[in-house]
């Protein structure tokens, strides 16, 4: 009799498609979720909705022509995307970059990091049901975008960092505004954190949710705030320094499991908030140290790289970005492979998701902070 009842009450898993058009997936990601009631039993990410054949395109373009394509990968952190590619080409060419250009590059990349993390801060709050932080974040992000617009002429896809230097010089007025922005920003960041990060509801929603342990992060090759959120003190800017980051003094914030488990959503959120403070520190040192001089070095008109290959890693807002560039001695890249951190992070979903509530899955995806342009390239 008992077994008959169980037979009758047997339930099946329900398949729900989250996306490809879903506000919580931050773009066009489709996650096929098998749910048991409200609990996720399995999550399968389906990618490729934003695949724009960047790698194939770059095989048919000269070395300068690839830079705008790099912009379009992670459209929220275009400056950082450009820097990695440009560094790889410069290393192969052996170009010397003027000091002023190096300073400007560091400046814009750190401003970009703040802009990108502000975007995370705003959209993550939306994911968890708070709308107003989004408006605050965009207000501040707008100041950065305005400066970028003056520098490069574009708001999001800059094509600003060129091989050998940067395209346009920065003037004193812009430097002054960046200086003022730094002061107001570090004040408002504290406000934002007390508004969202210390909020009881926010903490309840994020503590011990979507835990990524150190072992899991290594297994999948997760980088950036995910890895630091898991308590690993690793930042390419410090550990494998590039450009002129070795001259600056800053800390690497790591997660501590303060509100719940080590490596949970709250830790990742907190690491990003702290990183913005560190970026402000770097920008202030940059402003103090910036030198007069040329903004672009000597680069041949027709760029031809010597035969060989290079793998260049840089620390982007979302994690490590790697360019594997293979050259056959011609004026076009023979093969350009992009190691995108978001691609790696999406592949972790099937391991994070099982056992979570659907709403917590949204919180987990949000805290990983993916940009689908970079995932699909």
């Amino acid at each position: 009799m008992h077994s008959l009842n169980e037979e009758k009450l047997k339930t099946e898993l329900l398949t729900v498609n989250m996306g490809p058009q879903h506000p919580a997936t931050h773009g066009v990601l489709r996650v096929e979720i098998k749910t048991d009631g409200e609990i996720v039993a399995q999550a399968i990410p389906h990618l490729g909705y934003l695949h724009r054949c960047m790698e194939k395109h770059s095989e048919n373009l000269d070395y300068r022509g690839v830079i705008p394509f790099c912009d379009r990968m992670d459209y929220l952190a275009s400056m950082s995307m450009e820097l990695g590619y440009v560094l790889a080409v410069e290393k192969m060419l052996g170009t010397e970059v003027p000091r002023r250009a190096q300073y400007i590059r560091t400046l814009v990349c750190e401003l970009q990091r703040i802009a990108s993390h502000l975007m995370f801060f705003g959209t993550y709050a939306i994911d968890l049901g708070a709308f107003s932080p989004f408006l605050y974040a965009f207000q501040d992000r707008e100041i950065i975008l305005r400066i970028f617009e003056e520098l490069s002429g574009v708001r999001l896809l800059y094509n600003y960092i060129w091989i050998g230097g940067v395209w346009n010089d920065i003037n004193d007025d812009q430097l002054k505004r960046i200086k003022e922005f730094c002061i107001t920003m570090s004040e408002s960041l504290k406000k934002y954190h007390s508004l969202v990060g210390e909020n009881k509801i926010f903490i309840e929603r994020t503590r011990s949710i979507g835990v990524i342990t150190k072992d899991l992060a290594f297994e999948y090759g997760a980088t950036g705030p995910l890895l630091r959120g898991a308590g690993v003190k690793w930042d390419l800017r410090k550990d494998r320094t590039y450009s002129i980051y070795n001259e600056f003094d800053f800390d690497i914030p790591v997660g501590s499991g303060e509100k719940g488990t080590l490596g949970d959503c709250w830790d990742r959120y907190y690491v990003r908030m702290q990183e913005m403070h560190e970026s402000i520190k770097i920008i202030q040192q940059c402003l103090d140290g910036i030198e007069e001089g040329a903004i672009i070095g000597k680069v041949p008109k027709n760029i031809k790289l010597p035969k060989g290959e290079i793998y260049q890693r840089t620390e982007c807002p979302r994690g490590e970005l790697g360019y594997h560039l293979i050259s056959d001695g011609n004026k076009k890249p023979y093969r350009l492979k992009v190691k995108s951190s978001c691609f790696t992070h999406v592949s972790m979903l099937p391991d994070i998701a099982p056992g979570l509530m659907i709403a917590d899955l949204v919180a987990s995806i949000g805290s990983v902070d993916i940009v689908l342009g970079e995932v699909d390239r």
Partner: protein
Amino acid sequence: MEYINSKVSGANAVVSKGDAGDSSIIISPQHLKEVCRQLKDGEHEFQVLQVITGTDFLAENLIEVSYILASFTKNSELILKLRLPRGDENNLPKVDSVVEIWKAADFQERECYDMIGVEFLGHPDLQRILCPYDWQGFPLRKDYVTPEKYLDMVINPISKMNIEDREFGAKHAHIKGASTSVDNYKVDPPATVSETETV
């Protein structure tokens, strides 16, 4: 290199280096798994598999698969390479999967299969990832020809091509180093352009 050769017999590790940039280590594909396990658990501690890349060398009839490894404790990185015969549509190059060693290999191998057409033996779910699941051909191979149709949709319809750019490129093709030259596009420019070019 010596470390690999001493730990795994028959791996035939050779260092290769171009005129500039990083050097890499080429090993024989049969011993990939042993070498990877040794690199992960051994003294070099390569805990992280960063990326798996495939490169098609049409002239040498080779496909090169690169495994880029990194160590966060020893702060080092390594490019490990395999050279496989190119094969054809029915006989793809085959290599052992390393999913058991690094979970990161799961998506990376799928992408490599999708783009270059390398079959990874023992992969739990080897299917396309960026292209649609029923796509034909491997786009990043050098001899890949873009199909004209996918399902019922025309690829690269003439109404959506940027004709002005093409005409501009054709007009300025004689300028050396101009990035707008027509050969940057795989699709032929419209017929009218070639006439203006001769003028």
